[in-house]
């Protein structure tokens, strides 16, 4: 028995489509970039919670600097690494809003280390979405604090050397140690099951805002196929093999 495509392709049979909380602007990201999937999950969560008009994002410096073009909510843009400080001000002045930062690993774990530490230590009622692709994507693939030992980047052409460059910084584990954080988790977005889990974590973090449960911190281990010099499919495979042992997925803290 064959069913004509046109009988299937009807409005009432839609089971998955772009959420209206995404603007529909073509994203400037490279093909396969994890930032796109993470944007989509945030947009789906705010849409499903019905809080689009109460959500304020703070975008970083990094590839996701233009995130405000894609998720249809209120946004502001912070100086490099300073998103948690800006989000602090916004959430204190606007209790009842859902305030989140969106930051890369260069932005959050390098130039912005002080801001994220202190915001989490104060237990600011904000959500921090941290996309760790182990590299400075935007500026051409330089080493980040999160770069793996031996990983080749444009500034570590022979691979990251611990003698010279130190160890990959596990900032998520460090932040979990602070009393101000309530929910700290590490997720990924490379397969449908991982994407469902990551979305649930984002939802939980936004729900925590209503309960003022301290800072919610979500690391997403992601790919940067351009910086890693791989195809998106190879990058996902490399992430599973090399990144996950160093950055294991799962909840680190949930109070």
């Amino acid at each position, binding site marked *: *028995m064959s*069913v004509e*495509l046109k*009988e*299937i*392709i*009807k409005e009432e*049979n*839609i*089971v*998955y*489509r*772009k*959420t209206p909380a*995404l603007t529909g602007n*073509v*994203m400037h*990201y*490279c*093909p*396969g*970039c*994890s*930032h*796109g*999937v993470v944007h*989509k999950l945030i947009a789906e969560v705010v849409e499903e919670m019905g809080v689009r008009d109460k959500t304020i994002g703070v975008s970083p410096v990094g590839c996701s600097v233009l995130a405000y073009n894609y998720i249809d909510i209120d946004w502001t843009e912070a100086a490099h690494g300073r998103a948690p400080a800006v989000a602090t001000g916004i959430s204190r002045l606007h209790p009842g809003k859902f305030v989140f930062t969106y930051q890369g690993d260069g932005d959050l774990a390098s130039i912005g280390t002080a801001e994220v530490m202190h915001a989490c230590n104060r237990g600011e009622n904000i959500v921090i979405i941290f996309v760790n692709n182990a590299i400075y994507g935007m500026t051409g693939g330089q080493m980040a604090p999160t770069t793996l030992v031996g990983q080749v980047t444009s500034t570590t052409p022979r691979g990251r050397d611990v003698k010279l460059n130190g160890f990959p910084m596990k900032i998520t584990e460090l932040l979990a140690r602070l009393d101000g954080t309530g929910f700290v988790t590490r997720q990924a*977005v*490379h*397969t*449908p099951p991982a*994407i*469902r889990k990551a979305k649930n974590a984002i939802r939980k973090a936004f729900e925590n805002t209503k309960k003022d449960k301290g800072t919610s911190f979500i690391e997403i281990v992601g790919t940067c196929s351009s910086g890693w010099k791989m*195809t*998106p*499919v190879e990058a*996902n495979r490399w992430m599973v093999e090399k990144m996950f042992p160093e950055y294991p997925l799962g909840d680190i803290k949930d109070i």
Partner: protein
Amino acid sequence: MAKFKGAVVVDTEKCKGCNLCVVACPTGVLSLAREVNGKGYHYSEMTGPGECIGCANCGMVCPDAVITVYRKNVQN
């Protein structure tokens, strides 16, 4: 017994040909076109050998949110 049939529609002009949907499809429905879109990308289309079951895996993994998935319950 209930049986589901699916179909997907790709916004081919916005697709970046990243291939993530192709490898995420459990039934081999999708493949990248020989032709390119306006931006020069080999866009994804339903030209693989498999039959779509409307599982939405492709839609979920697409970073650019350009896939719409349809699923119809077809009674035998």
